[in-house]
């Protein structure tokens, strides 16, 4: 299972970074979102994998490490805030610049 | 006074019931808490409910619900057969169903019912709200199907809410 998880996170990261290397704002934002999913999973599994009961006292004998879960929650919220912000920024950039390039292609194309 | 405190008693009732269902418990505390929510939420959101109608005939409603549930089961059996059979033999059709019900709420209920029941999905409502466009996966006689739907679903709905 560990290998599967590792590979899945790796593939997600790869895809995310590939998208972040595109020339337009929207794919870059998609990449960032995908990256934040991958990172959230990464943080999560740093508490190791565990099946069965959540970290709710009384639900079982052993519990998973709750710390990474709490960290992921914080990361998700912050990631959400950031995504919202950059989306609006992309919109703003598109209106101000007349295009949605991020590759230094200045004007002329839309 | 009561009207202002409890603008939507039937909604409050539903919410109370739902709360108990949600918490999976009928302890006294939860009943109290449920009552609190059942009061609070309508109190603040009743202005969002302009078009929602009140059920006039509850028993008719229950009967209608039974009919629909049976129809859903049948519908799915039929759909399953149709889906798994050779799709070349299916006879799909768009049908235009004239509406007798007038209110948005009733139309919505009707459209939902039609979508859940045999082989039909309500796909569009004309702008004048007089016709419902329905897509059917497999239909032989369009006129007859429409008539059947009007009689089976629209009539009771109209009676329950609009009479």
């Amino acid at each position, binding site marked *: 299972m560990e290998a599967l998880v590792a590979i899945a996170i790796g593939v997600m990261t790869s895809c995310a970074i590939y998208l*972040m290397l595109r020339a337009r*704002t929207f794919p*870059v934002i998609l990449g*960032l979102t995908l*990256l*934040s999913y991958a*990172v959230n999973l*990464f*943080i999560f599994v*740093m*508490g*190791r994998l565990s099946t069965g009961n959540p970290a709710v006292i009384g639900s079982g004998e052993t519990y998973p490490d709750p*710390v*990474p879960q709490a*960290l992921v929650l*914080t*990361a998700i919220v*912050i990631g959400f*805030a*950031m995504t919202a*912000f*950059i989306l609006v*920024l*992309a919109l*703003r*950039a598109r209106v*101000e*610049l007349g295009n949605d390039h*991020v590759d230094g292609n200045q004007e002329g194309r839309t | 006074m009561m009207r202002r405190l409890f603008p939507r008693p039937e909604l409050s009732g539903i919410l109370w019931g739902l709360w108990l269902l949600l918490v999976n418990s009928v302890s006294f505390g939860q009943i109290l808490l449920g009552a609190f929510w059942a009061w609070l939420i309508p109190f603040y959101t009743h202005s969002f409910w302009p078009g929602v109608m009140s059920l006039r005939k509850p028993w008719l409603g229950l009967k209608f619900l039974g009919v629909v549930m049976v129809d859903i089961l049948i519908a799915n059996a039929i759909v399953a057969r149709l889906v798994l059979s050779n799709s070349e033999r299916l006879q799909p059709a768009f049908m235009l169903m004239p509406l007798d019900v007038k209110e948005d709420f009733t139309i919505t209920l009707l459209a939902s019912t039609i979508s859940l029941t045999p082989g039909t999905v309500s796909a569009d409502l004309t702008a004048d709200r007089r016709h419902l466009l329905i897509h059917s996966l497999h239909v032989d006689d369009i006129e007859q199907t429409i008539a059947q739907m009007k009689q089976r679903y629209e009539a009771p709905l109209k009676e329950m809410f609009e009479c």
Partner: protein
Amino acid sequence: MSHWILIPILLPLFTGLALLIWSDRICVTRAISATSALALLAVDLLLLQRAAEGTISLYALGNWPPPFGIVLVLDRLAALMLVMTSVLALFVIWYAACDRDQPGDSLHPLIHFLLMGLNGAFLTGDIFNLFVFFEVLLLSSYALLLHGGGKERARAGFHYVVLNLAGSALFLIAVSLLYGVTGTLNMADMGQRIAQLDPADRPLAITGGLLLFAVFGLKAAVAPLYFWLPSAYAAAAGPVAALFAVMTKLGIYSMVRVYSLVFASEPGLLLPWLWPLALVTLAAGIVGVLAARELRRQVAYLVLVSVGTLLLGVAMNSQQALAASLYYLVHSTWICAALFILVDLMRQQRGLLEDTIESGPPLVQGTILGIFFFVACASVVGLPPTSGFVGKVNLMQAVSSTVEAVWVWPALLISGLLTITALSRSGTTIFWRTTGDVIAQSRAGVMPMVAVGGLLLISIVFSFAGDPVLSFMSDTAQQLADSTAYLEASSLFQPVERGDIR
């Protein structure tokens, strides 16, 4: 336990919130904002005084003892950074209040949120909490950068935000990796656990440390991760750019903090990298200073030069050099901020030319602005009697007994010479090579002049009264070099006795 340590975080937070909720009149906003900044400075000075005694104070949030809860730690370094930031903020807010905070009503609250983030980052003793405060200050900085709108800000802003989001993602990866290896988030505890780690697993922790270096390097604008900086700083509104002078320093601060505490057991971790990167950064900064066509961009590259210089100091890995770097850090922050404000003032008096380094109309207040520019340039280049000179001499002395002097000295001196050449070009072009008539209505009032003058004065005071400062830096470096006091403070810490309320 004293709650004072918390004030640098809570005061800006409450100020920002108050400004967001009650934002009716701009003059009220300005008054609240400036008062808060002043109060913050007062508190920070108090904290500095306490830290200067050498005690390390802890504050356990939620009364949970370390390493379990989040702790704030006030040591000399933290206090120093706090004071540096609040002085800067006071002048920036002062300047912004000179009607440079339009349009909109969000500049002041954003500045205070930025302060909250910065102060939190300086104070926290928890590595994930550091991340959270990074995000607070980054998001504030994104919004601040875009303040005022316009093409360049949108373009530069997008680049800045994307790169920093990538950086934040990496920060999370590194921090969680470190958690995955050590099982803790408290920096002091993490450092101890890394020291006790099975050598076979140590590379994992080191990987976390090196990934963090990429994160901090991005914030600090280390080559080759500095590309976001010039455009962002050049595009930002005057007060914002001035405030941003502290942003790169945060990266440096984080490096110093994390590597002296968490990776105290791996002292040579960064050394092979810092050296070449510092030199390349310095070179890139100088090239940019020479190449710049606008003053704001030139100042932005000066920021880069200061980063390169600072890194050289940090790379020296000696207490003395670290002390010198800290002095230089404070000096360069203030002076770059002064330059940004100054350039903003000059820009307003040059009509459509703005800050392009070309012959244009004479400035209405050419004399006073010229004097300011002259002093600021002297300081940034490192000419006496400014703090820049003291900083540079101090830095050079710190390496004089090491072999590295062969690199550092020429780097510092040549960068100084090239900067002189470039700045004298821009200065003479703008102040001396003038054509046409002054734009009379562009005259600035006394208040903005006081903002620049004050910062420059501080730079000079910082040099004339530099001896106690230098001693403090020396003590700070000593405290950092020996993390046992920090660890002791952490391990001896006792939460408040629970009474009957729980």
